[in-house]
């Protein structure tokens, strides 16, 4: 069976940062991803450790018009027909960090010793055959969920998935959703 037949477009990624408890189970699971070469790509950070214990979790949002791919001087980042923005092509990436600094979500990582950018590919080895990304299978608090819109609507009746983000003058639409108060249609960062 070809990959095209096995990828399930009805399954989507839903992130709810306020549910993140900072356990880092997702980090460990992410390192099991075959497409990452067993490097953990997910980000778990304290937001402002001096004043709050709040942690935040960030996967690649797989933008509709990915800034990372646009600013790449080596044409190393591509988006496929399923909307997955792939990690840098190893033979092309020149390790310039344009994508690392231009991504509005702060996702790509520059691995200095490889002189290479790496990032989350939504566990393409798994999602391309109908499985869930590693992080979403282990998250104990529901901060990361991979499933259908119907499932998330049933689980979170008071929330709405949003995939439009406003960074100053820029509106960014993504494949990955963030769970927001019911009725929201965007998340304004500024």
């Amino acid at each position: 069976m070809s990959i095209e037949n096995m990828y399930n477009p009805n399954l989507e990624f839903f992130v709810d940062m306020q549910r993140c408890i900072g356990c880092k189970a997702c980090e460990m699971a992410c390192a099991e991803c075959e497409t990452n070469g067993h490097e953990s790509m997910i980000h778990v950070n304290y937001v402002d450790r001096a004043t709050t214990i709040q942690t935040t979790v960030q996967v690649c949002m797989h933008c509709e018009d990915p800034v990372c791919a646009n600013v790449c001087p080596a044409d190393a980042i591509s988006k496929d027909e399923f909307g997955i923005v792939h990690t840098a092509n190893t033979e092309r990436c020149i390790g310039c960090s344009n994508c690392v600094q231009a991504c509005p979500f702060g996702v790509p990582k520059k691995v200095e010793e490889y002189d290479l950018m790496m990032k989350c590919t939504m566990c393409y080895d798994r999602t391309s055959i109908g499985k869930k990304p590693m992080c979403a299978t282990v998250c104990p608090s529901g901060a990361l969920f991979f499933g259908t819109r119907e499932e998330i609507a049933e689980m979170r009746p008071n929330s709405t998935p949003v995939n439009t983000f406003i960074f100053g003058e820029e509106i960014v639409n993504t494949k990955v959703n963030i769970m927001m108060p019911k009725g929201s249609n965007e998340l304004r960062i500024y």
Partner: protein
Amino acid sequence: MVTILRTLNGKALLVAFAVTALLLALIFYGSRDLQNFDAALITYLFGTIFALFGVTYRYTVWIQRPPTWMYFKRGFQLFFNGRILYHFGFFLKKSVVNIGLQKFVYPRGKYRWLAHFLIAFGCMTAFAITLPLTFGWIHFTLAPGGIDIYEAHFFGFTVFNFKLGSLIAFMTFHALNWSSYMVIFGSLYFLRKRLTQPGLIATQNFESDLLPLILLIIISVTGLGLTYSYQFMKGFAFDFLAVLHAISVIIFLIWIPFGKFFHIIQRPAQIGAHIYREEGIKQGMAVCPHTGNQFDTQMHVNDLKEVTKELGFNFDKPDGTSHLDLSPEGKRSLLAKAHLEARLKGGNLFG
């Protein structure tokens, strides 16, 4: 047809024609008005000329893209900023370490590095031997007055000689065979990796990832086959192997501008990125307003603001600063803060 012509890049066409014309002139003069040109290699010559035209065209189109042009422009500005000798030394050092030895591959696995090094070294030596031969720049003759000394000539000038039957002669005459073995071993390693690793199987495709390896193996095996055919098999299937070898080499050459092999041409840009980074550090680092830590060179942040705008992205904030002033960690934190604020406004943290 008209549509195709309209999509062509004028500047790139001009540069490609100029570079190709320069090569033709060098072939003419380097082969001493074609008297040293080997007509048996004419098909390879056409393949090489096409490859050069295509590579130059694609390279010129590529460097015109805003982010690439920014690096290209800055690279030249920084290289010639008064410390040319230092930068030249830096460039040479990085060329040996990054392009010659591909040191950055080693941390990803020593066998991976070895396999890549074998392919790269095999290909580079094969290019270094076959291209000057095809252009008629190198040719061999017997030294006058004897039948046991062979002389190598470059651009018509005698550069070295060796005794027939000596170790140097053996190594020189079989140089392409050593290249072939290197390429075969390296390619088999990567082919095995690509056929067995789930991560690679999920993301690769045949024409971009498997075909180049198969092509390298065909070129090397048929090349070796030519030697074995005339040395050990009384010329068995020599013509067939010669044609197969020529076809595979020409496919390889004309495909360089379009496929995976273009990275051979593109890769030296990595050295430019290193010079850019090093010079940027000297000019000053950017500090993230959220984390309070240095995260990148200020030159890079400023250049990215310009490049993103040129590409149609505007991350300017109402207060006159930019989202790009933040480090990646700062960006993630501000997103989480905005989300928390929205949740608090919604009256329920978890919904």
